[in-house]
């Protein structure tokens, strides 16, 4: 059992936040926009909830703040995945894929 196993199945919001950060550092609003883009706006993160998710992810060591000197707006905080975060994300993704495969093979009853 690795450290990543301890996180178990992730809540959908957390999974989407991690997935958004997979391609590189983003600031808070950037995460919201990326999640909206990826899910065709079916999943929307509210700012007031996002900061709590981020704070928890930082606390748990899945995400860390990272300085981005090129950003013109100094108020923005940028976040990126830690190696542990990346591992947790990958495990969750493969769990979902395997679940999808099981469901694809499942024979639904007629009724």
């Amino acid at each position, binding site marked *: 059992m690795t450290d990543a196993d301890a996180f178990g199945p992730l809540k959908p919001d957390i999974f989407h936040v991690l997935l958004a950060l997979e391609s590189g550092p983003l600031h808070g609003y950037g995460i*919201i926009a990326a999640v909206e883009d990826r899910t065709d706006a079916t999943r929307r993160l509210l700012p007031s909830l996002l*900061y709590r998710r981020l704070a928890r992810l930082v606390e748990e060591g899945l995400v860390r703040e990272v300085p981005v000197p090129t950003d013109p707006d100094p108020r*923005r905080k940028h976040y990126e995945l830690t190696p542990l975060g990346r591992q947790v994300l990958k495990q969750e993704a493969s769990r979902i894929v395997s679940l999808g495969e099981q469901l694809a093979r499942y024979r639904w009853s007629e009724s």
Partner: protein
Amino acid sequence: MAAALSWAERVIRWVVGLYPSEVQTPHGEELVHASLEGWRIARRRGVLRGVIWWVSDGMMLLLGAFIERAQRAMGWGTLRHPGASWMDRMRADLGGLVRSMRRNAGFSTSLVGVLALALGLATAVFAFADGVLLKPLRYADEARIVSVWASRPSEGLERVPLTQWDVNRLRDRSDIFESVGGFTQQRTPMQLSDRVMEIGFGWITSGIHDVLEVEPILGRTFLESERGELVALLDHGFWQRQFGADPQILGKTMRIAQQTWTIVGVLPPDTPLELPTRGRVPLPVDVWSFMWVDGDDASSAWIQTVARLAPGVTPEQAHDVASQIAADARAEFPERAEWGFELGVQTLRADVTGGISRHLWLLLAATVVLLLAAITNAGNLMLLQRQRRRHRTAVRLAIGASKGRLSRGAVVEGLLYAGLAGGLALPISSVALDVLVRWSPADVPRLDVVGLDVRALMFLALSVVLAGTVLGVIAVAWTADVPTDDVIRPKGGRSPSWSGSHLVAAEVALAVPLLVVGALLARSASSLESIDPGFDTSEAVALRLGLPNHEIGREELSLILEDFHDQLRALPGVEHVGASNVLPLGGGAFTGPVAVEIDALTDPNALEADYRFVTPGYLDALGVERISGRFPDSFSDAGSAPTVVVDALLASRLWADGEAVGRTMSARPLGDARSDFTIVGVVGETRHEDLRQRGRPTVYFTSANYTIPYVTTVVRGGVAPETLFPMARQSGAQAHPDFLVADARSLDGVVDQAHALSTWLVSLVVALASGAALITGLGLYAIVGQFVSGYARSIGIRRALGARPAHLVGVVARRLMLVVGLGCGAGALLAAWASRYIESELVGVEPNDPLTWMVGAALLTALVVVATSAPTRSALAVSPVEALRSE
């Protein structure tokens, strides 16, 4: 655009400013920025999008601020104590709590015990009312099934069955009434091998099956070709009980009412035909037979009617259509116009439960009031206990404990108490429900669906949450009130507290309406018991009979009956014996017209009277008051003019002077030709439907010609029902082989049954009111005790200096008057409202009856004095020397 943005930014900054500083410092700018970005993008997509952003995201931002604040107030902040998990903190709180509960075992027991009792009772009463009133009937799409009744307001008749004419008009409107069925039912003796029992016997038209959509599990329903044949469908329970669920039952026969019936089907188990009855007592029907109706007769109203509404039709629409049919009927039949004839439609469920629903709602309301009083009491006890811990709390605050943590402990404590009480309430409610069901009078329908089910458990869970929330809120409010500098005051030096007084005032306010309603109902019940039913109920037994009715003429029947009566008269102690078709208080409509002139009988305005067909000796056996004339001592002769006895009401309605003896009147009994009768006696009135209503004008016929197969014999003399029953069965068997004696009941029992429902309701409400009063007394005892114990030392010192004990009493009394007065004022308003609600239940007492209100006030005063005198006296007993020494 820029102006709009700065406006939005200002609002967002203001909202973010509402967040606690623990959030604002590290995340505030981020929050403002992310929200602003969201708003900007939404606004670019259009004004509507912008508005939607404020309604959804903006509101969530605001809500988040409140949630964060609440969590921090409770010490549950997720960011503040990253080390300890939520579970760890909860466990720590619980550990402290269990220690504290052990220290205050008496306090915890009384708080949890009273709350558990009230929760258990409330859950039981809820389950009872829910099962009887709210659960759907077990028919497919039951909301579409309605029953239809006629009423004749000018005659004072509320629920009259329909005529075939009415049923046909309903059937004509198939756009509204998809199917229409008729039924009628009664109880009748049945002989099964050598046993005799009384069964519920019903007749149904074939349409009933289309209305209720119930198909037999064995066999079939009736065929049109079986018109006039003796065929029967069995209720499932009856089939199991009496025939051991015999699968070969079809085609077998049974003897009911001296006739042989062929069994053609068995109804399914979970859908008995639940049909409303004309009287109040529901009648479980064991055997159904086929009722064939045709033609367009508009004169005999005997078809009790149910209908299935077409899909999408509401009962209100059906009611409007029925009203239209009634209007047509009034236009077509002059006597119906005289009656003010109306047709009414209501759902079958409302009809089945109509007789009991007000009683059950009242009972449920009383139980909820008791529950609220118990919750208030628990809050009060908790507050007082916190008050005792005030010093310790202040010390904890002073050495650095946060108010959030203390509040959290208090909330957990409240929830724990409520949860414990809820757990204990479960077995209590199970026992209470069992008692309620066993003890409920025969008038209560649908007891078979009453049980502690998911809905009842949901009710209990919600009540527990309510109790926990109230206790928690009280605890948090109190903790917030404790000043941190309290610790610097000497431990006993503060002024005596009177905390919890507003809660006790609330308890008083809840107890007052219960006491008043209980007292009103109790007075009403006692006046109901003092109502003279019009006959002597002591030392008399009623025997329900089934006479042989197969190919036996009425005169021969009367000889058989008289033979039976003669044998009973020979029994030791028996004084009078006689039979009637209808016993008082049994209800039922056996009526016909009476008039002074024979031609007036056909007048639609002819007086409608109850027809009683009695044997000589019945009026003596029943013990009816004889006002004038004589009682017949033999059947009126066929040769001479037949004679009758009438009651005083009929005499006064036919003749202004009320003198009837020797006069002649006309009537039309049992469909006979109209004939004249000489009145030989006038008797007092008896109550017919129930004790509340005066009887209708009544005429007693004593002709051998009018003997019908279903009669009740009354035996007067010192014989107990259980002794008489076997002897009567023996005598019956000697009179004729097919003679059945169904049961024997004392007349006292008949009267008791007539007010069983009222007695039941009164006992329960009085018990609940007493419970609320006890709880209130407990609350008063606790606050006065707390108050005087804080004051005792100071009064002890004052007494040492020469002050009089009356001073302390005065101080306590002044405070009490405020609390009790406030509670009484609010309670009186509630009581005035509640007593108006029960007005229709009251007999012989007005809702604002001054005596009852004074009794309520006196009870309350007594309660206050009893609850407060003990702690006051013990405080006065503190010796001045002791007080000085402890100082």
